[in-house]
């Protein structure tokens, strides 16, 4: 389901449909997080991506009224070349990782404590408190930067 909706993201002509398919993709990925018992990340993924970021994308698309691609739509050979090179990339990576020593390893599903908010928060505010503060400063600067860029000059 994630793969199908991800394919629809890049094949939809209308950018609004593309955004909606991307939201479905994010929900599918959140489903995988829940399956891996990473509940905090699943909730954060839905709130941040499917909620905030996608609404931002929709706002921008509707603000620009950019329904169709411009007069220079995708040229056929660019599409072909991109698809072929992507396929080759996938082929190389799959061939490289198919016989790796990871094959016997399994990921713990539907169990385990580390995805819970208690453990993650404890770790985040003890060992990772400095990166956390730095990321808050990054957020502040990104906010100021977005306002400055978006300001009419």
């Amino acid at each position, binding site marked *: 389901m994630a793969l199908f909706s991800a394919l629809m993201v*890049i094949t939809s002509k209308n950018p609004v449909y593309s955004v909606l398919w*991307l939201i479905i*993709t994010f929900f599918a*990925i959140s489903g995988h997080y829940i399956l891996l018992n990473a509940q905090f990340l699943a909730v954060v993924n839905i709130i941040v991506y499917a909620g905030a970021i996608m609404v931002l994308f929709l706002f921008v698309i509707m603000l620009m009224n950019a329904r169709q691609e411009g007069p*220079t*739509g995708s040229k056929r050979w660019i599409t072909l070349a991109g698809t072929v090179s992507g396929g080759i*990339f996938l082929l190389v990576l799959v061939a490289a990782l198919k016989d790796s020593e*990871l094959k016997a390893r399994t990921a713990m599903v539907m169990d385990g404590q580390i995805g819970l908010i208690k453990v993650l928060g404890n*770790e985040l505010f003890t060992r990772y408190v400095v990166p956390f503060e730095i990321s808050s400063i990054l957020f502040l600067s990104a906010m100021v*930067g977005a306002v400055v860029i978006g300001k009419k000059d």
Partner: protein
Amino acid sequence: MPINYYLFLSLALFTIGMVGVLTRRNAIIIFMCIELMLNAVNLLLVAFSKMHYQAAFEAGQVAGQAGVDGQLFVFFIMVVAAAEVSVGLAIIVMMYRNVHSVDINFLNRLKH
């Protein structure tokens, strides 16, 4: 669940995002494909985190903290992606205001 499945799933998602970046002309869709690639990496990080946790669990350790780092990295990636999206969309809006297009064929020169 074998880690291979997650590996190939996120490889496929990443490749789809890459193909989208290579083929589409709309700057917003290219941006969305970058988000898709980030999410593929996130999924793989969470899967590896759980793999690490299970390895520590089976080794008989207390397994309290093993693998927490991966999930926290995913959290930080999400934070950085949110900041990146806000700035990037502001840039796209500004370029649209100047050029009246989001087609990257028209945006290939940095001045107008």
